[in-house]
Structure formats: structure tokens, C-alpha cells
């Protein structure tokens, strides 16, 4: 039987295609579980998981917490806003203090890229990266690819365009790695100022025109403009951004095929996509959210199974 090649999920960069397929197959079973009348299984009943969120999150945090609870794990939550981090405690000290309360796994979101990798080297627990700055957000990429697989049957051979603020997006980077490992073709589209300089070096083509990008692709993954990460102006006005890179129903209807529209949320309605697109049948935004729980259950289950019982 196959198992994950890693003990932590720090980024898509560090896992193999076989790992991703194993996560998907396991997620299929969990998707069936969460559609039962009793949505809970006892697998992780002797595992304690700490959710450490040093940066704001709604969806990811709720999704992880629900996944953990549906696996019967004990859960403790921590957010930086109300903690001793404000008093000057270091990351390792904070985490070690939490681990001394017998915690087996840590789900962490942190504003600094590489925080998860750093932590995995220094503490004795299984780490799941729930977003580290502008670096990676592996579970989002997994659920995005899982949703494409569910909708289109397979990820291999599909053409996916990621539109918007690629520069500040951990979702974009993780998605690029995951899609490429699964054999999809990836393009990015957005204002030149929001495309990373060396993006073509990792085998991703850039496209300046949204219409050409949409005509080329099977799936469009629309990203949010991350105003909170922008210290300078990357485009003149939001209105101009929307005119060039916003997707409307009229634009989708003018294409000669029906493409799948995705969005990792939260949506700025009327900026990157209009409301009629977000609520249309072509958009699988809410499927992505539902799949998120199943995929995270799979990740937690597979990582937990590598924590041997006698090591407790």
C-alpha cells in the first residue's frame, strides 16, 4: 500500500504526483463520509491538533477545524491577535509551549514565507502549512485540482489560466506546482506589474489579454487582488483593473465554449468577477469549499497515519 512520501505538508513543491493522487483517492472516500447523515469517523480520536493562525483566515480555518472534528481529533485554536506573540515570544517558543501540552499535529498559517519549513526542522510534530506569506498554500491547490478532477474527469491535459494578482498569491504558486505535477498546462494572466518577473522560468506562460487567455483555457482560476499586501500602487484604479481583467457573464457568453470558473475566495464581487458569474452554473466556487473539507480530511488522515502509536 502506498503512503505519503513526506511527514509534513509544507508545500506542493515537496510532494510527488503519487502523493497528490493518494490524497485525491482518500478524499473521494471522505467526500462520501461527509455526505452521510452522521458525518464523523473515529480515526483520529487519539490525535490532538493545534491550529495556529498568525494571520487572518475564515474559510481555511473553518475548513481545517471541521475536517479535524469530522475525523474525531481534539482541536485547539490559537490566533496571533489574542496571544503572547504580541508580548514578544518567538515562533519556536510559542509552538514548543503548545506541543508540551501533548499536541501531535500543527496546522499553521503565518505571514512569513518558509515559516512551516522552519518549524518542521525545529519541533517534533507533523506540520501542515495553511499558507505561509506569499509562498505556498498547498491544501488550497489540492482542493482546486480535486475540484477540476471532479468537474472535468481529469487534470492531465487540461489548460488552466490563473488570472489576477499572481505576485502576491500563495494560491497561484501552489496551484502552478500542483497542476504541472498532474500534467496540466498553466498560463497566468494579469497586469504586468502583478506577474512575477521570472515566472516563465518555471514553465508558465504569461498572457496579457484576458480574452485570449479565456479562449485558450478549459478552466479559469480567478484570484483576488490582495490590497492588504500591496505597499505601492500596481495598477491605476480598481475600475481599470476590472475593465481589463474582470470576468463578466457577457465575456463568458461571447466565448465559443463553456469554461469552468474557479475562485479561492474571498470574492471581491464586481472586481475580479461579476456577481452573475460567481452565481452561475459555470462557477464551481462552492464545490471548491465543500471539497476543501474532504481534501483536508485526507491530508490529516494520511499524515496522522505516519505518526506511530508507540512514539506517543
Amino acid at each position: 500500500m502506498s503512503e505519503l512520501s513526506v511527514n509534513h505538508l509544507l508545500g506542493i513543491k515537496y510532494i510527488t504526483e503519487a502523493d497528490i493522487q493518494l490524497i485525491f483517492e482518500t478524499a473521494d472516500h471522505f467526500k462520501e463520509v461527509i455526505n452521510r447523515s452522521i458525518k464523523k469517523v473515529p480515526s483520529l480520536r487519539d490525535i490532538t491538533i493545534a491550529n495556529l493562525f498568525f494571520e487572518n483566515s475564515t474559510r481555511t480555518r473553518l475548513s481545517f477545524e471541521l475536517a479535524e472534528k469530522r475525523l474525531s481529533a481534539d482541536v485547539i485554536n490559537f490566533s496571533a491577535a489574542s496571544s503572547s506573540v504580541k508580548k514578544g515570544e518567538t515562533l519556536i517558543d510559542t509552538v514548543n509551549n503548545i506541543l508540551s501540552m501533548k499536541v501531535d499535529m500543527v496546522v499553521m498559517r503565518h505571514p512569513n514565507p518558509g515559516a512551516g519549513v522552519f518549524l518542521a526542522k525545529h519541533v517534533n510534530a507533523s506540520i501542515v502549512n495553511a499558507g505561509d506569506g506569499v509562498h505556498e498554500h498547498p491544501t488550497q491547490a489540492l482542493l482546486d485540482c480535486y475540484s477540476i478532477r471532479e468537474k472535468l474527469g481529469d487534470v492531465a491535459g487540461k489548460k488552466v489560466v490563473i488570472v489576477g494578482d499572481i505576485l502576491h498569491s500563495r494560491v497561484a504558486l501552489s496551484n502552478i506546482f500542483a497542476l504541472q505535477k498532474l500534467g496540466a498546462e498553466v498560463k497566468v494572466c494579469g497586469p504586468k506589474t502583478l506577474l512575477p518577473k521570472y515566472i516563465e522560468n518555471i514553465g508558465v506562460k504569461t498572457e496579457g489579454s484576458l480574452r485570449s487567455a479565456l479562449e485558450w483555457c478549459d478552466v479559469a482560476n480567478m484570484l483576488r487582488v490582495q490590497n492588504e499586501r500591496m505597499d505601492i500602487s500596481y495598477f491605476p484604479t480598481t475600475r481599470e483593473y476590472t475593465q481589463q481583467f474582470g470576468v463578466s457573464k457577457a465575456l463568458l457568453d461571447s466565448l465559443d465554449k463553456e469554461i469552468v470558473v474557479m475562485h479561492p475566495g474571498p470574492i471581491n464581487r464586481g472586481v475580479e468577477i461579476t456577481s452573475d458569474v460567481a452565481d452561475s452554473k459555470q462557477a464551481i466556487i462552492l464545490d471548491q469549499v465543500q471539497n476543501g473539507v474532504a481534501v483536508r480530511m485526507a491530508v490529516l488522515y494520511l499524515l496522522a497515519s505516519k505518526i506511530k502509536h508507540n512514539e506517543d
Partner: protein
Amino acid sequence: MSQKVLLNATEVHIALQRLACQLIENHNSFTNTVLIGIQPRGIFLAERLKSILEKDYKLKNIQLGYLDITFYRDDFRRGDKTLEANTTNINFIVEDKKIVFIDDVLYTGRSIRSALTAIQSFGRPLEIELLTLIDRRFSRHLPIQPDYRGRQVDAIGGEKVKVCWEEKDGEDAVYLVNE
């Protein structure tokens, strides 16, 4: 490694016919009874019994589901391997139904314990019975016994009972394997 034949193809077929008849004795036309094959190996036996009931005894609308117990097992993280799940497919209501669990070999009883927990996620059955092709006597870890058994076997710890099905393994047979 040596192996001995416990049941050959003819003996398997006779046992299956008898088990099907015993099921009919207790459940008549199966109007309020459903069959649940336990994944991964119990589903072959379950499919065979369903086919015998439908073809040989002309019973219609036998409901058969597959139940995977992986996430309910009590040996998670206890072994070297990750436990791999299989498909659960129960597309009918089990509330107030009579359920017959079907598995190929009853050994420690731990799988059936897990199945008893797992089925609760689908509702509250009226009653649950257990049918196994092979009942390994004297090896139970839990107070679980079959209601229907094909053959009782005395096997010691180092021995393994291997049930082969034509559709999966190319022949119908039961072997006692000494490893």
C-alpha cells in the same frame, strides 16, 4: 510456504447454495432485509449470494450495499502501513431494516466490531446478523459469532485462510496457508 485446500470449487458452490437457503428461511422475500458486503473481500461473497437469490430462487429487488470500515478500525497507526480505504456504497435507507453483514473470513472479530460502529452512521437498523464463509474458531478477540457460516475452521496463529473468487483470483477455492 505450504498450502492446503479447505474447500474446492464444488464445495464452495454447495456452501453458497446452503447459505442462500438459510437466508431465505429467515428473511423470506427480503422485503425488510438488506445485505451489506464488508469491503474489501466480503463484497465478492455478497455479490455471489445476491446472484444466487435472484437467479436460482427468483427473488427480486435484493438490496446490496458495500461498507468500508477503514476509518473505524482500531489499529490505525498501530501497523507499519497506512490503512487504505475502499468505496462505501449504500444507496438505501438502513433505518429499521434487518441487515445481514457478509464477510469472507471471521477471525478476531475486530472488523465486524468496526462494521457495527460504521453502520450506525447510516441510521439505526432493526437488527444485524452476520454471515461468513469461513469461521476461524478459537481465534476471537471479541464476543462476536456468526449467524450463518459456510465452514468452521481450526487454524493456528501462524496460519492464514485465503478465500479465492473466480472473478478476482481466477478460481473458487479456500486454502489454509502456512507461512
